[in-house]
């Protein structure tokens, strides 16, 4: 324990002294702080003005006294600035917002509010054709949102040699986050519940955004707000809270997922929800293969296809080539998963002897073989199994004991539509997949997957049968994708070969699945789900990108890999792999309570 205390703070800027630190913008510190507070309030207030004269711009920003559409985002941004500014003043009850007392969260929220507001103003001018379309309120909002940014960057911070370095100080995470005041288990659960609710509201808002501009504004604000929370150290504190209450958090997460359709009035958004879930579930299955076992599989979507086609064939559809067969759902789900498992083993057995790049190329080939084979099994160029490019349409809706998934149901005053029904079923499937993932990862088999990923030669020298273990990962991943496929066949009414390709502009396809895993964070549960949600929502909301969406993704992925290679939600291992931070991996012995020591004492 003695060696663990090596301090990771080289410069320790504990108490800011005005002599060595000054703001980037020359202003007295008091004025700067006041400016952030006033600017934040002004930004929030400006949302109540009319920004444009016509309702042609979506969201109706023409009303004085009531924010609409994008103005709500500016309003939220302003409120966040005010909160962080007050926390900076040390107002009792808000100090927990910035435990380390750094200014980065304030600067980042100010930038976020500036981003959304200016984006809105520019979007109005661009869409309606000129600045003349702005009402005075628009100008006021633009100027008001600039004030907190000026204020935040006038706050004293240690100056670096270059402006770039100084700027980094303004957006850097606090170096040492003081331990949270001890909380009782009930308080902890209360906090987790509150965070879950806020998360659900935020997420629901994102899905429900009715037009592309609103979604972009939302993304800007959310990205900066989350970044701000990260620099404040609140995310670290929360994740520590989560590790102490893992099962409770998981339960809350699922409750929130179940609650989602009840917050929706339009079944269209439940449709988006169910598609995100299908996409996310498959991405989580791929995460076993890529994130844990380290096998780069570029044809993974084929297993989703196998599951979907199997379910379609036994669904009782009149176009199914196996006529007259109608399995109950549990049976077709099992058949779909089993069929995918068999395909996984068939494809895996010859290919898993290859390593690295070779495996990627071969799986890419097999993925394409699946699609082309399905395209050709139409009775002309091959046996008549899949009806070729026409696919298998009119797949009947599921029916559980008289509960027809195709109809709307009223549950406790809420109307649950068709897609909401499937959404709830998909939540169940996802729960199974999450359970399988977490349990498999934390076991002898999971450790051997990670060992294989880390160093295959050493792993086999430790007695791990590399081929067997990889095949299990491959087959397990395949069957989970197949399971999700069986539901997706029913959700979409029909299965056709086209979506099961390597790359396309809409998810799911193998490239998007892999991107979801990498973007979200390999080796985590929440990462691929978040990645899948983002990758599904972006093309769905940003319709104007059309065929350029792939290009946009390429750029986004490159940027992400440059600045955060471990993904949005970082696995502890990955984080350390990409950022050499010395002793950071040392279990938090002093700042936070340590449970490992207890188990150690027992061992």
């Amino acid at each position: 324990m003695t060696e663990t205390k090596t301090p990771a703070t080289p410069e320790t800027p504990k108490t800011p002294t005005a002599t060595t630190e000054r703001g980037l913008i020359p202003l007295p510190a008091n004025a700067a702080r006041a400016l952030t507070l006033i600017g934040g309030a002004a930004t929030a207030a400006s949302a109540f003005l009319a920004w444009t004269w016509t309702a042609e711009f979506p969201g109706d920003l023409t009303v004085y006294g009531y924010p609409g559409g994008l103005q709500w985002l500016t309003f939220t941004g302003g409120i966040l600035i005010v909160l962080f500014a007050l926390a900076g003043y040390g107002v009792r009850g808000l100090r927990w917002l910035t435990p380390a007392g750094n200014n980065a969260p304030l600067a980042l929220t100010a930038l976020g509010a500036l981003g959304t507001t200016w984006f809105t103003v520019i979007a109005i001018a661009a869409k309606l054709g000129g600045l003349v379309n702005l009402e005075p309120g628009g100008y006021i909002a633009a100027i008001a949102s600039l004030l907190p940014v000026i204020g935040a960057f006038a706050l004293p911070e240690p100056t670096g040699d270059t402006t770039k370095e100084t700027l980094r100080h303004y957006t850097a995470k606090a170096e040492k986050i003081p331990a949270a005041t001890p909380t009782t288990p009930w308080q902890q659960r209360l906090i987790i519940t509150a965070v879950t609710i806020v998360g659900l509201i935020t997420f629901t808002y994102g899905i429900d955004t009715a037009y592309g501009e609103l979604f972009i504004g939302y993304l800007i604000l959310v990205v900066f707000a989350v970044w701000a929370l990260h620099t404040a150290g609140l995310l670290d504190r929360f994740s520590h809270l989560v590790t102490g209450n893992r099962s409770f958090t998981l339960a809350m997460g699922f409750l929130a997922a179940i609650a989602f359709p009840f917050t929706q009035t339009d079944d269209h958004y439940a449709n988006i929800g169910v598609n995100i879930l299908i996409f996310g579930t498959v991405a989580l299955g791929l995460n076993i293969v890529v994130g844990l076992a380290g096998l780069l599989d570029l044809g993974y979507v084929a297993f989703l296809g196998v599951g979907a086609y199997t379910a379609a064939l036994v669904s009782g559809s009149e176009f199914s080539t196996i006529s007259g067969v109608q399995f109950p759902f549990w049976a077709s789900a099992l058949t779909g998963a089993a069929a995918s498992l068999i395909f996984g083993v068939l494809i895996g057995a010859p290919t898993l002897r290859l390593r690295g790049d070779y495996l990627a190329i071969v799986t890419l080939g097999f993925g394409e073989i699946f699609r082309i084979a399905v395209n050709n099994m139409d009775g002309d160029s091959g046996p008549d199994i899949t009806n070729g490019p026409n696919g298998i349409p009119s797949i009947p809706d599921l029916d559980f004991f008289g509960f027809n998934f195709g109809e709307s149901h009223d549950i406790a005053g809420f109307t649950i539509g068709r897609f909401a029904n499937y959404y709830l079923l998909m939540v169940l499937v996802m729960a199974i997949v999450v359970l399988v993932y977490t349990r498999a990862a934390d076991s002898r088999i999971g450790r051997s997957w990670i060992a294989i990923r880390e160093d295959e030669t050493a792993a086999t020298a430790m007695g791990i049968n590399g081929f067997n273990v990889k095949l299990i990962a491959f087959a397990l991943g395949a069957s989970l994708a197949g399971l999700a496929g069986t539901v997706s066949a029913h959700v979409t009414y029909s299965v056709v070969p086209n979506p099961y390709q390597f790359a396309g502009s809409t998810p799911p396809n193998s490239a998007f699945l892999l991107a979801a895993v990498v973007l979200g964070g390999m080796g985590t549960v929440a990462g691929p789900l978040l990645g899948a949600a983002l990758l599904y929502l972006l093309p769905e909301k940003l319709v104007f990108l059309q065929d350029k969406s792939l290009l946009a993704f390429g750029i986004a992925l490159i940027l992400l890999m440059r600045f955060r290679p471990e993904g949005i939600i970082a696995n502890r291992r990955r984080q350390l792999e990409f950022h050499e931070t010395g002793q950071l991996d040392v279990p938090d012995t002093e700042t936070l309570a340590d449970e490992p020591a207890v188990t150690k004492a027992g061992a």
Partner: protein
Amino acid sequence: MTTPVLEARAVTMRFGGLTAVRSVDFTVNTGEIVGLIGPNGAGKTTFFNCLTGLYVPTEGTVSYKGTVLPPKPHLVTKAGIARTFQNIRLFANMTVLENVLVGRHTRTKEGLWSALLRGPGFKKAEKASEERAMELLEFIGLAHKRDHLARNLPYGEQRKLEIARALASEPGLLLLDEPTAGMNPQETRATEELVFAIRDKGIAVLLIEHDMRFVFNLSDRVACLVQGEKLVEGTSEVVQSDERVIAAYLGTPFEGAPGEEEAAEVAAAEAHAEAAPSTKGDTQ
């Protein structure tokens, strides 16, 4: 004589036209520490890889306690031969404890289903594995670093951890490939003690080493490989005084003045580093 733990018969390894190991016969008996020396490129590591199944020998067989080993690394480990690597091959992004737990792989059998269902058997096995791993970590003195990532350990501790990981597979024979490479004299001496402690657990040890003091101190028998062939095998004295070994590998006479001077220098440096109070051990 005791029964042989490891018996290699006429092991030959050819890579195309190059014969890296030529018809080597070799035995390791229970409770023995055997050293394998030889100049660089003599085929020592290749021979190791043949023993552990990483390479399939072109000719010859390797048997462990009387049964011929299949040339598959994981089966060799399962049979009871564990190894470390010349350039450390830990699972860098796993914790110290996890590394050792991976070493337990062959001695546990909980599969995927057991992991998914999490019955009482699974929990018992995980607990037992962890206890055994912690014992090993205590044995090598890394128990306090169980939750560190392997990559963040200092070099000497990484070497130790690799040995612990190998020991976790409960081997009857431990193969160490240059266990003291890159170590300072103190660490080398600690490793010496560790190897003796391992031998005292009833595990035979076969080691490749370039540190002659280390090898000749430690080994009951030493074999010298030169150009893929076993030149000589015997006790430390026999090998040290063998003219062919001197010519091919040791170079200057081992008991000559420069060597002794050097050894004395090292001993003095060590004594100095060990600080004043402990003056018992450095008389030799």
